[in-house]
């Protein structure tokens, strides 16, 4: 179920979709798409060998602006549907995308359980700290007290630091980047693709329209790359948890944590001896033996 003649290297233009982007000027999503394409090209994965699952949200409006086998599904559900596809055909690269609203509000259950289940997919979380597509309401990542649409006094709930949340769930791979840094995004996405297990990449995504608090410059001033720290050990979960906490002064980016531990499918005892993918196995099942037990 892989079609590509791998002799021809994948090019950036292979992902070109003639539909016109509909994001606002300076929206961070442009950078994310650019990095995504670069990473896929660098990994030599063609559109025909990629499955992408988009959530409903501004981020998801990119689904028809790129190529690949895509689904633009339901709000909050990009992760489980991607996992289902991945389990059926692991030969293709599976990537899911979701906003902070999708991932921490409507679909937080999926994030929690995907991390503990170790599905081997890449999840890119577009964190713009609001529900952008519905015009700027608060998400779990919106700062407490920040006035926004439908919330004249700002939310009273504690805000969730998404990376801290992810790291508290004991992931096997967690990276953070910023939509203004295409190089770093490309790198962490590539690392996420290569990691065997559930790879979460949180991207702090500019939303000049609804998030005027932390814009491009604001982030630019604060982000730093952990790989540039002399003694950073990305296999140390506690260290990652500590460094991820600051979202005000110095914001850690890069692969904050990575410790492979095998993925879901490869731990399934009953699939150990199979060389084929589920998608290749659809044929009349052998029920004769099973029926014998009921005589």
């Amino acid at each position: 179920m892989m079609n590509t003649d791998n002799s021809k290297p994948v090019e950036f233009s292979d992902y070109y979709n003639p539909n016109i982007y509909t994001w606002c000027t300076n929206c961070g999503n442009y950078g994310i798409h650019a990095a995504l394409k670069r990473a896929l090209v660098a990994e030599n994965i063609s559109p025909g060998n990629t499955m992408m699952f988009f959530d409903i949200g501004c981020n998801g409006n990119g689904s028809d602006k790129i190529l690949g086998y895509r689904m633009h599904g339901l709000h909050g559900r990009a992760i489980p549907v991607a996992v289902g596809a991945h389990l059926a055909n692991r030969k293709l690269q599976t990537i899911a995308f979701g906003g902070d609203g999708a991932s921490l509000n409507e679909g937080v259950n999926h994030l929690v359980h995907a991390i503990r289940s170790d599905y081997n997919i890449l999840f890119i979380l577009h964190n713009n700290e609001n529900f952008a597509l519905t015009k700027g309401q608060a998400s779990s990542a919106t700062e407490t007290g920040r006035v926004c649409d439908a919330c004249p006094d700002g939310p009273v709930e504690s805000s969730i630091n998404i990376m801290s949340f992810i790291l508290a769930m004991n992931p096997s791979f967690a990276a953070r980047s910023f939509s203004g840094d295409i190089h770093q995004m490309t790198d962490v996405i590539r690392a996420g693709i290569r990691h065997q297990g559930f790879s979460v990449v949180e991207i702090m995504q500019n939303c000049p329209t609804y998030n005027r608090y932390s814009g491009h410059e604001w982030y630019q001033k604060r982000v730093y790359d952990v790989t540039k720290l002399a003694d950073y050990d990305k296999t140390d979960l506690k260290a990652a948890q500590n460094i991820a906490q600051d979202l005000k002064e110095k914001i850690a980016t890069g692969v904050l944590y990575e410790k492979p531990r095998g993925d879901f499918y490869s731990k399934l005892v009953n699939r150990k001896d199979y060389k084929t993918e589920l998608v290749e196995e659809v044929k009349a099942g052998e029920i004769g033996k099973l029926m014998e037990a009921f005589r």
Partner: protein
Amino acid sequence: MSTKRFSIKITGASGQGINSIGEMLAKALKNNGYKIFAYREYPSLIKGGWSSYQIEISDLELASSEEKCDLLVCLDRESFYHYLPTVDAGGVVVHSLIKLKLNETEPLKSGARINEKKYLEDNKIQIEFIDAIAESKSKWGKGIFANTILTGFIWKLLGEPVAEIESELSTFFKNKPEIIPTNIEALRYGYERTTELKQFKLDFKKDNSWQDSYILSGNHVLALGAIQAGTRAYYSYPMTPATSILEYIAETSHQTGILVKQAEDEITAVQLTIGSMFAGTRAFTATSGGGFDLMSETLSLAGMIETPLVVVLAQRSGPGTGLPTWSGAGDLNLAVNAGHGEFPRLVLAISDVASAFIMMQLAFEFAEAFQIPVIVLTEKQIGESLYNFKKFPLSLPIQRYLLNGEALKTVKSEDRYQITESGISPRWLPGSSEQTYDANSDEHWLDGSDSEIAEQNIQMYEKRMRKLTKLQKQLPEPVLYGNLDAENILVGWGSVKGAVIDALAEIENPEKFAYLHYEFMFPLRTNKLNDLVKKGKKISLIEGNYLGQLGKMLQAEIPELKFTDKLLKFNGRPFFVDELSSYFSSK
């Protein structure tokens, strides 16, 4: 009391082991050449309450139970209070209730004990106490052989030779050979125990060829049908009465290689399923009403992105949590209408084991042929009752309706949602071509790209809905059972079939009735029924719900349709053959 069958009810609290007694008896009986059917009632709790394992015995193939029984066995008091009124005149009660005092007063409020003394006398029911635990203790130092003693005793009452039950017991305990000898002793002890009770004589023709027939639950067969259809992944969140599908597919997963994931909730289960179907394998999920509600948004998604999806809706009595371990057929309207917006779908309803096996295969066939969600209705009554049958019905060839080979070389992204007359557009799997597409839940145009252009929106909407027309044409009409020229026609669906057909086999006047059985619930075929209406037949409705849901759907299609009678039952119990026999006989 029917002369066509004999029925035994083993009753007790959850956890007392009545299922083991029941299973052993059931298998031994079928090994003896009888035909059986077993029905279970149990409460939604782990220990306590009252429950029953009821076995029907006959020389006819059965698919239903009697409400009444000939022999009642009671291991605890609550069960005795509850089930005594179901013993038929001339029947027998065996119980292990120390110092049981029969109630002799009339009940004052709902749910209270009946006047037990009077009931026994009026109905000439014999009753006997066996202190099985004490007898077991006195013989073997511990009480755990009590159930085996009772099993032996029951076998004796049935008048069957002891050898058969002995060999079944050995099979039953084959994984614990060390306990077999004492259990055999206990069995013989029970068998040889003296008794005041009359001995029954099973007056049915034995069929030797029946000895290697199968005993399976509807859920077992449903799972086997799905396996036959090439299912490679099963995703589910436990919910009665769908849980036993999960259990069975998980237990056999080493043999089948099926990937099984117990999901964190139902939304996840159905999303995993549609993801796997999108990628091109065959997968399904099953749940009951509450979980189905949660899945309904995904049905609508499947309709929009034209991705096949198979969801089993195992009905119990609602609304809310309802009677979680009891049966019902109140979710037809839900299956037909769940999920927002308009999209084509197919709703199938299983009625028994043969139907379970075929419908699961058809579910995948239609889901893939039409790229639609298919909902398969079943009921606790079907899923958890044990059917005894000899041959699995036909296996259908598997077709995938996917582009492959040469076709893939010329395919274009824009083909994916091509506007076609049938409404069905070409589909090819992720990874099979560099021409990719967007399965877009936003309204879209040919390659799945967003579109808000009115003219395109109409064309795409109509294309999707046209599938419904083609689908309806392709579905079969309902089947008419019984005397095809009969004056009185009953129309029904689901587990009702077994009870009606069994009743027709037992009554004096079967020629007066026919039964029109629906298995393809939506879109509905109504030509056959329409003809019957035009011929002036008396049409009556029989359904396991309050509203007469199928009835209303039929009336929306056939203006002239009026129901002479409506037999509607919604108390968690299935239709019993004896209640239907009386109904028929009264006509």
